[in-house]
């Protein structure tokens, strides 16, 4: 991943949301949530203005460079893909999403350019009149350049509960924050959000976080992330502007299916101009293929071909040289932060009902966000297109390729042991548990269905992370066997009656002062052999915990198959942790004991370079 100023743009515009306009119109961003309808204000719905040239919005994002390539420039250029398809359009800046919505409702443009989350926030307004209900016609990409940075008080997303988070009001990061909290089973009321006016700069979350030590985390774009931490895998030291202890706790680099960039069209215009819309999508996909090939060639050879230089230069001119100073670093970097989905991605997103990150699921999440966070008072959705992608491929002159199941993690060199070691915690993004009965490895899929569904959705959403199913065993028997072995061998002396035992070692009561001695004796084999051997029980616990993890994995796969949910089996790995990290080291009763008998689902970062390479990531 390239970390560059492009992100600046990206964030600025990107999912940008309501961003600028929200900012402008919210007198006090930290105040109570304002409804999206209030931000837009009264707008009369009008038919789309007639004319040969169509106004099409764009935002600051790598995916929009494909639009420039298809169109040749802001105005459709002779010889461009769109011109050859008979289209004529004028591209217009759309980073002011509220402004976009006004233009859309009033008929100045039939199109919206945003993210699925942004459409969700505006859904109530857009759907009030059936003519303006959005039909989503194209997914450009998934984001890979937005992050949540936190202080040491937050090591995983589970630690977010009760914490204070800075986030731009109405911006693209609202969706990222919503998805991140949801992954940890948290909601809006579990955190205190400090809304900022801007996505970056003096009034952005990064500076607010830097100024106010009481703020635990912030949602930022890549340059700000680097400024706070010095890198995706780094931890701020306090030097050179970084914040001591600050590190990335979640990123769209791993949560690769959170922010979907899309184009949507008014229902009335879609129905009346299906041919135009079809050609728009076909031309865009053609340009996307060309752009991805050019980007790949440059990344591999470091030699910039003339056609690539040309489109990067056009993009630099459109966005401004102040925003994207260099072609090689900034404009190319903007493209690298963008995971294009291509033609197979359209099929996967719009047509595969088994896709846990498909249109239906993503829309549902967006509407949940809008209603739960009070941007909207009613659930108002939008519609998918009804394209025949074989026709689209033919029109665009591209090969029709259906999405194929790929085991992207199969070549991962990491062994399962790395998911047992001490680095696991620092690489964990989020986790949750399922509990079991003693010495049991079976369970009902009916009972655990909701947890399985959650796991499958997270596996899909965190498309570049590994899902580790980690079994745990209760340590009571291991400890009891240690006491039994110790007393049997005379290492420990037991005094008293059941329920009121006391233990001595070398004449001294066992307490903190001689725990170290017991540990030494354990290591020396003083408790080994005989009927009770804590080491052997521990090994049995490792095996039991693996059995649990594998049973869960098997049931998860079965559940996915029965529910017809696609998943990449190579993404999921099962490991047994034995008696490591019990919730309660010394349970006092069966209820406490059961808390230790569990299987954790952990979403764990892996090196993106280790994943199977692919031009399109869907």
């Amino acid at each position: 991943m390239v970390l560059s100023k492009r992100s600046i743009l990206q964030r600025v515009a990107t999912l940008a949301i309501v961003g600028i306009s929200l900012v402008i119109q919210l007198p006090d961003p930290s105040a109570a949530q304002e409804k999206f309808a209030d931000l837009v204000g009264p707008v009369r719905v009008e038919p789309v203005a007639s004319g040969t040239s169509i106004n099409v919005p764009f935002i600051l994002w790598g995916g929009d460079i494909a639009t420039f390539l298809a169109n040749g420039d802001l105005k459709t250029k002779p010889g461009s893909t769109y011109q050859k398809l008979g289209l004529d359009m004028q591209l217009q800046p759309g980073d002011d999403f509220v402004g976009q919505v006004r233009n859309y409702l009033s008929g100045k443009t039939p199109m919206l350019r945003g993210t699925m989350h942004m459409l969700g926030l505006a859904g109530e307004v857009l759907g009030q009149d059936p003519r303006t209900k959005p039909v989503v016609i194209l997914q450009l990409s998934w984001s890979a350049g937005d992050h949540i940075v936190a202080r040491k008080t937050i090591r995983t997303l589970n630690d977010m509960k009760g914490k204070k988070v800075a986030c731009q009001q109405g911006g693209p990061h609202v969706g990222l924050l919503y998805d991140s909290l949801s992954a940890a089973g948290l909601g809006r009321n579990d955190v205190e959000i400090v809304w900022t006016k801007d996505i970056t700069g003096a009034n952005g979350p990064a500076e607010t976080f830097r100024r106010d030590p009481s703020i635990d985390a912030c949602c930022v774009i890549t340059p700000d992330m680097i400024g706070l931490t010095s890198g995706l895998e780094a931890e701020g030291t306090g030097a050179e502007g970084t914040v001591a202890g600050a590190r990335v706790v979640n990123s769209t680099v791993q949560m690769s299916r959170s922010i979907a960039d899309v184009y949507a069209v008014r229902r009335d215009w879609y129905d009346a101009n299906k041919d135009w819309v079809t050609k728009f999508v076909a031309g865009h996909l053609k340009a996307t293929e060309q752009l991805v090939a050019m980007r790949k060639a440059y990344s591999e050879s470091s030699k910039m071909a003339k056609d690539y230089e040309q489109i990067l230069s056009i993009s630099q001119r459109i966005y401004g040289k102040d925003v994207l100073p260099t072609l090689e670093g900034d404009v190319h970097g903007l493209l690298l932060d963008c995971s294009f989905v291509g033609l197979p991605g359209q099929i996967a997103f719009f047509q595969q009902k088994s896709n846990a990150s498909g249109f239906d699921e993503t829309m549902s999440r967006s509407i949940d966000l809008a209603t739960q966070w009070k941007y909207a008072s009613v659930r108002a959705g939008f519609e998918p297109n009804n394209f025949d992608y074989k026709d689209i491929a033919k029109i665009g002159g591209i090969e029709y390729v259906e999405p194929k199941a790929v085991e992207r993690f199969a070549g991962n060199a990491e062994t399962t042991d790395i998911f047992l070691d001490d680095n696991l915690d620092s690489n964990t993004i989020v986790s949750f548990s399922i509990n079991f009965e003693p010495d049991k490895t079976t369970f009902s899929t009916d009972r655990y269905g909701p947890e399985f569904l959650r796991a499958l959705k997270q596996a899909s959403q965190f498309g570049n992370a590994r899902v580790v199913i980690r079994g745990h065993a209760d340590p009571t028997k291991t400890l009891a066997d240690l006491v039994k072995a110790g007393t049997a061998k005379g290492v420990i002396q037991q005094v008293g009656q059941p329920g009121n035992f006391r233990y001595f070692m070398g004449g001294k009561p066992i307490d903190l002062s001689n725990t170290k001695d017991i540990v030494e004796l354990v290591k020396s084999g003083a408790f080994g052999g005989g009927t009770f051997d804590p080491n052997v029980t521990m090994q049995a616990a490792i095996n039991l915990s693996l059995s649990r993890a594998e049973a869960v994995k098997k049931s998860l796969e079965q559940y996915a198959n029965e529910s017809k949910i696609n998943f990449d089996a190579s993404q999921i790995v099962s490991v047994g942790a034995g008696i490591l990290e019990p919730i309660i080291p010394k349970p006092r009763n069966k209820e406490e004991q059961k808390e230790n008998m569990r299987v954790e689902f952990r979403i764990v970062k892996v090196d993106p370079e280790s994943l199977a390479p692919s031009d399109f990531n869907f």
Partner: protein
Amino acid sequence: MLNRSDVSLALCIAFVLSLMLVSLGSLAHAADHVVIILDDSGSMNEAMAGNIRKMDAAKRALAKVVEQIPDTTNVGILLLNGARANNHWLVPLGALDKKNATIMVNSIGANGGTPLGEAMRIASDQLLQVRNKSVYGTYRLIVVTDGEASDKALLDQYLPDILSRGLIVDAIGVNMAGNHSLATQVHSYRRADDETALSNAIVEILAESSGDNSGSSDSDFELLNALNDVDAGEILKALAKPNNDPVTGYSARTSAVAPPEPTWVPPPPAVIPTAAQAPEKTGFFEMLFGTFCTCMLPILVAVMIFITVAASGNRKRNR
């Protein structure tokens, strides 16, 4: 021709070995790893009642076990004296080629001493090497012997280390009058001549206290009442990760804390004594025999090579 008691002994050994080799099941990453240490000392040549050699009974038992071992179990067979060229591995630890293993088992002779300590170190290190690659599964040493170790000092040095690694050590006494000294130190000791005791004695190792029988879970809670949470946490940390370092005997020699003198002598693990059979050999004679064998070995090998070469030459001429 074997009589009933000889066959019975072989079956008993086979039976107990089979029970010890019960598979974990079908875990994708877990397997059972077992090293059988077979005493091939000279005393195994001795005849038991019925005029059958102990070694013949042991070989018959082992061959039967080899047939029955699940394919998922990794097995190694280590001899105390034989297979010197392969560091005493008659069958290296790994997936079992049953046909070849049976041939190898049938080829075992009985000659030499009883260097149990060294053999257990070799076997343990091999198991630990495997466990270092995959922590899952069972890791077990099964010692089949008819006598005490001739390298007792080494055994005393290595055994605590082996036990501290969490390897399971089971011993089977073959035709011994009394119990082997390992009986009170290892995880189980079975006499190969008591089938009933064997079948009753082997139980599944449970990882967790279960509250569904005889309140065992409750009694575990009572046992642990006096231990505070911090102590428990620290002890668990020491126990939780298996130690796969090679066996050196270091921990036994240098432990910072000497185990206190036992205040009482613990009862040995399940051992059901039966009527004595052949007299147990003495350590002294065994050592003497071992020394003799060691000295004579080069000569014996030379003679064997000579015979082999001569036989080979005869075969060539006969063509």
